[in-house]
């Protein structure tokens, strides 16, 4: 894959500059998290969902505090009440959205339009909330993205992608990531995303090529397994191999999905800088696929009880594939300005399933 090439260039550069690699370390355990999770899920249900805001803070604190880099852990500071407020607003918006469509399609369109226009602002607020409430070594992260840029990244470029039959989708994706990263900071040191539009296009095109290849291969396979000649063999083959073909399709989408997300994380984090420090990311697509399949089976076979174990496994894998190539001492950062942010944006974004987290 072309992305790997870009990524390995990064390594050599790091070596030449004599940077020291520090991997992220994740110390969470499935059983430990299971106990915390089940108690919190139970309390959330018994309190009709009100407690879920507190549960979310505990979950994130468990994840953050188990994430270590250079012998210090991260922490999450979100206030449950702010999250609860955000959730209530999100539910109201969700109900308004669904109900308006049921009552009158035109009213539904109007509500959808208003929500669509508000979404970039909400996403911006959610990024601000999330970063402001994250800390490492006692220093807060921060997000200083402007509203106008948020509208460009979350509405303008995606709209462009829509109008160009998704030809501009990789460009839009790169702009969204750029907006997220280039406006983020740790203390008062800014993040910088160096992943190019070209890199995104190469990744998208590779994925597309694999999908098209599979789609072209299928009729050939069907013809080979069918009887008769020409079109006849295709039809009988498709009929007899029907379930088998579906299986191949599902498998190939799983494989492409894992390749895509692995290389996407590598592309984005492998090309991110924080001051003089660089990040690296070496997610193996094969491992990712294996974890996804086994997690899926585990969750399905245990009726969801495996969920906390699955979450820990996935997080450990993703985090421990990453690290910082530190130039000098990580302790040299000094604290930057802090800002207040409300939780509404984050919760709304989560409810509407627009997950743009890192």
């Amino acid at each position: 894959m072309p992305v790997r090439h870009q990524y390995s260039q990064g390594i050599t550069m790091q070596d030449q500059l004599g940077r020291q690699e520090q991997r992220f370390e994740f110390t969470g355990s499935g059983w430990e998290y299971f106990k915390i999770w089940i108690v919190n899920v139970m309390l959330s249900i018994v309190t009709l969902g009100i407690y879920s805001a507190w549960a979310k803070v505990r979950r994130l604190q468990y994840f953050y505090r188990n994430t270590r880099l250079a012998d210090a852990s991260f922490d999450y500071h979100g206030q449950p009440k702010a999250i609860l407020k955000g959730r209530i607003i999100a539910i109201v918006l969700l109900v308004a959205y669904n109900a308006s469509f049921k009552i009158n399609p035109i009213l539904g369109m109007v509500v959808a339009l208003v929500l669509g226009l508000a979404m970039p602002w909400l996403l911006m607020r959610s990024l601000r909330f999330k970063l402001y409430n994250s800390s490492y070594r006692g220093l807060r992260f921060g997000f200083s993205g402007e509203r106008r840029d948020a509208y460009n990244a979350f509405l303008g470029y995606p709209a462009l992608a829509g109008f160009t039959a998704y030809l501009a989708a990789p460009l839009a994706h790169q702009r969204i990531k750029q907006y997220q990263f280039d406006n983020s900071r740790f203390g008062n040191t800014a993040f910088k995303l160096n992943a190019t539009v070209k890199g995104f296009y190469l990744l998208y095109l590779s994925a597309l090529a694999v999908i098209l290849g599979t789609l072209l291969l299928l009729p050939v396979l069907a013809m080979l397994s069918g009887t008769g000649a020409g079109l006849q063999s295709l039809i009988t083959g498709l009929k007899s191999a029907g379930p088998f073909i579906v299986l191949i399709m599902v498998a190939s989408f799983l494989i492409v999905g894992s390749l895509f997300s692995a290389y996407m994380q590598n592309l984005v984090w492998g090309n991110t800088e924080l001051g003089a420090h660089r990040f690296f990311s070496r997610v193996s697509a094969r491992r990712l696929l294996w974890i996804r399949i086994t997690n899926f089976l585990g969750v399905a076979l245990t009726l969801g009880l495996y969920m906390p174990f699955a979450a820990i496994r996935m997080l450990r894998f993703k985090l421990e594939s990453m690290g910082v190539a530190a130039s000098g001492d990580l302790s040299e950062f000094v604290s930057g300005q802090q800002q207040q942010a409300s939780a509404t944006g984050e919760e709304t974004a989560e409810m509407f399933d627009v997950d743009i987290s890192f």
Partner: protein
Amino acid sequence: MSISPSDSFPQVSAAYFDGQTAASKAVRLSIDGSDLLLRTDSAEWRWPLGEVHISERLGSTPRLLTFAGGGHCEVNDHAGLDEMLAQTGVRRGWLDRMQHSLPWALAALVLLVVTLAAAYRYLLPWGAEALAMRMPDAVMQKMGSSTLEAMDRFALKPSKLDTARQQELTDEFAHLQPLPGAKFNYHIVFRSSPRMGPNAFALPDGSIVLLDELVDLTKDDNEIIAVLEHERGHVERRHAMRMVLQSSAVGLVMAWYLGDVSSLLATAPAVIMQAKYSRDMEREADEYAEKTLQLNELSPCLLAGILDKLEAAHLATLKKKEQQPEAEEKNSHAVMDYLSSHPATQERIGLLCPAK
């Protein structure tokens, strides 16, 4: 690593961060009266315990002691910190205990399963019914007309019954005395559908779609009336709206819960669970029809009779399909087979007409 043997007071080693820079400083913590003492080799700070926020335990994650001014200490020695805090009378909270105990985890699991089962069995139908009963008429009208539109487009054909016969059935149905409290204006919509076979269904707005195939199934018009009354029961009890509400609630919860795992997993249970709902609702509609028939001095056995015929017709179609599996592949997945959503037909017949 925590308690130095030379000192009689428990000491805990920690990493101190000042909140201004990312540099960490190794410190030793101890308690002195009502103060927390921070010591390095060369210096000493003192904080009133009331101004220190001590984070709760969360698995084996480091605990944080945050100071009013902004700095904090990261402690990894859990036993040492607990021992030190025990002197000050700080106790572990109930939530802390629950989150770290296996018996509580199991108890939570049991409680969770019981709560979910109870919510699904009682709360969901109750909530859906309450909501459906309050649904404005405009919504019911809209849902009825859009459902009929969709069915006309995909599954239904015009009826072949002549207008005189249609009028006759309409009159017979209108002639019937409804149960007190009936709300909707009913009218029969005549259609046919060879694909669906003998069938009738109630739309939320009070329209009852009656298929020619069902009319052809019996010579006794009162049996048709019995089916129409059964459908009226569905309408009056707002079953369609309740089904929609219930399945979307289940779907929403599943999607939220399984969100990142698979949307496939999320939709399957909602579909599977619907069968159970229908059975309860069928019984309710049967009872409604039974009461209306009795009110009009007709026998509930009429409904039992037509149910019997429907099942026979259904079995016959199944058999035919088994004999020719290749043909009409698509049609075997008929949109809404009258009997597949009407399980335990014999049981229902027994309830309606014990003599039979």
